[in-house]
């Protein structure tokens, strides 16, 4: 860590991990409700658990991205953050807003929450991921503006590297793409069309730019490979993201009431969407092979190398599986989508967040890297979580296949609930891997509670004595 003001990233990272735990707890409850529909009913209906699970995901990822920005932007700009104080105030505002949101979901009936918060004046509630009451949405915009002001001012007064320009630029994109959350027309088809500006715009567009910037930064720092080469790769990767992904949004428009030409346009362009992820793998491993030094933080390197592979599997492969219109005709709105969502969100975004946390947290705690004991715990957590998420994905895909054959493409289609009963075994498998994911998360968190740092002499002696 080269600049004192980078310290402000620490509370963001810690809060991100805390919210991550919350997300997984709600995930486990939701998974149980698939198996036992009366579990915690009526205290916690499924929709409340579901929105808590998805909203915590978004909040913890944003928390981690913001922490990453406050850590990376000063380092890249080679200057102190414009206002560390503002960054800290923003942190508390964002954390409080996140906590109030989840608590209001849990303790206030949704209709009442809408009535209390002026939803009748400007309706925004009742859409996936965007369930937050109006004042919270306004708060999110204010937090984003504060972040943008702070990092942009830092960028202006300092060195303007490509990594920094891409990172700050994509944070602007993130904020702008949230604004359609305030556009909720009465025409449901138009509303769905615009909802994807936020959702697709974030996860299949702008966030991939953030992912590129973060991975580029980590690899520059850890491998010592020439910045020019890395930044050139990142530009090509994010170019492919937007070239494929902008019109690729059409894969959300096939069967929702939009014109039929999206069936062709969406299929062609979204078939290209795996390309940036393939390039990301090629780039990461090429950079790894050309490394000029051995960084002692093995765990961070594991996260950094795991991210492109898992992102490719989740976003690239599982995304491709459901993206072509003739295939999607039979599996649109089934557990196939949930399978893809889980592996893509984890592989691309949770893992890049954990990668930057893994790289930055030891530095923020005054160490180059954690001791090998701590790193072993962290890497065990990595394997537990990653393999468990693959298990969850396969289980949900299995449930999707049951729906495909018994309901969607059946001669004599069964009803929804009947089919869900037939898929029960897969929901059990999903819950099993959910528990093992949670175990992995606890193992990962344990790694933060070891004192001491990585010591070359010690590690060398141990390695030689084996």
């Amino acid at each position, binding site marked *: 860590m080269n600049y004192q003001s980078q310290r402000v990233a620490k509370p963001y990272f810690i809060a991100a991990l805390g919210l991550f735990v919350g997300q997984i707890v709600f995930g486990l409850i939701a998974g149980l*409700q698939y198996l*036992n*529909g*009366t579990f915690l*009913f*009526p205290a916690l*209906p*499924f*929709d*409340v658990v*579901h*929105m808590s699970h998805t909203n915590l995901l978004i909040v913890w990822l944003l928390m981690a991205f913001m922490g990453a920005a406050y850590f990376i932007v000063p380092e890249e700009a080679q200057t102190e953050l414009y206002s560390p104080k503002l960054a800290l105030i923003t942190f508390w505002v964002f954390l409080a807003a996140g906590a109030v949101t989840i608590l209001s979901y849990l303790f206030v009936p*949704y*209709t009442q929450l809408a*009535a209390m918060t002026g939803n009748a004046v400007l*309706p925004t*509630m*009742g859409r996936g991921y965007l*369930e937050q009451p109006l004042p919270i949405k306004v708060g999110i915009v204010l937090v984003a503006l504060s972040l943008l002001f702070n990092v942009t001012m830092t960028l202006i007064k300092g060195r303007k590297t*490509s990594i920094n320009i891409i990172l700050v630029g994509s944070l602007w994109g993130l904020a702008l793409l949230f604004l359609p959350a305030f556009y909720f027309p*009465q*025409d*449901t088809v*138009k509303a*769905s*069309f615009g*909802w994807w500006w936020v959702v697709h715009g974030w996860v299949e567009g702008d966030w991939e730019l953030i992912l590129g910037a973060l991975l580029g930064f980590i690899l520059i720092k850890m491998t010592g490979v020439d910045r*020019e080469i890395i*930044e050139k*790769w990142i*530009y*090509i990767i994010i*170019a492919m993201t*937007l*070239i494929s992904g*902008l*019109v690729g*949004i059409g894969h959300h428009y*096939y*069967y*929702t*009431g*939009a*014109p039929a030409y999206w*069936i062709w*346009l969406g299929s062609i362009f979204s078939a290209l969407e795996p390309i940036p992820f393939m390039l990301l793998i090629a780039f990461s491993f090429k950079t790894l092979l050309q490394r000029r030094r051995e960084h002692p933080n093995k765990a961070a390197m594991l996260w950094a190398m795991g991210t492109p592979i898992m992102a490719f599997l989740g976003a690239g492969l599982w995304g491709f599986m459901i993206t072509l219109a003739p295939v999607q*005709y039979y599996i*649109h*709105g089934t557990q196939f*989508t*949930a399978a893809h969502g889980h592996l893509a969100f984890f592989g691309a975004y949770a893992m890049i967040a954990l990668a930057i946390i893994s790289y930055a947290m030891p530095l923020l705690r005054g160490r180059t890297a954690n001791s090998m004991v701590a790193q072993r715990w962290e890497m065990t957590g990595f394997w537990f979580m990653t393999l468990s998420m693959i298990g969850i994905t396969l289980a949900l895909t299995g449930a999707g296949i049951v729906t495909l054959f018994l*309901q*969607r493409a*059946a001669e004599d*289609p*069964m*009803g*929804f*609930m009947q089919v*869900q009963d037939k898929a029960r075994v897969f929901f059990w498998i999903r819950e099993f891997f959910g528990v093992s994911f949670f175990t992995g998360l606890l193992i990962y968190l344990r790694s933060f509670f070891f004192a001491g740092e990585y010591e070359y002499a010690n590690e060398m002696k141990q390695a030689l004595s084996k």
Partner: protein
Amino acid sequence: MQQVFTKAMARNIFLGGAGFFLIIYLLLAYDSFQQIPIRDHAVNLTPSVLRGKYLFDTNDCIGCHTVNGEGAYYAPELGNVYKRRGPEFIKAWIHAQPSGAPGRRQMPNFHFNADQLNDITAYLQWLSNIDTNKWPPNIEG
């Protein structure tokens, strides 16, 4: 090779590609917005349908159900439920929840009055007439 293909060229491909396809997308989106009101019969968005839609959103129906495949996958598709079940069944069903059957997925009771049930049903009827390119494949959704 690396000298021939510079970072500036990579950046220009990014900016040019993003800009070009953004413009293409915006033109297509504009055209879609002209066609959507015809495809979904927006003229039929009566006050009753809109009241029903407001109830639908503020009770977070898509927190469990899907509409044209979008939402959560815990409960049945509602885009075509009007055609699958008909108005009387729908009203009776919503009114009778929760079933309380042990282990079965539960739908809360939203305490709708008769007018509200009519509004929700009107909205579901409007949904069922959207041109969704023949989706879902069959009436089960």
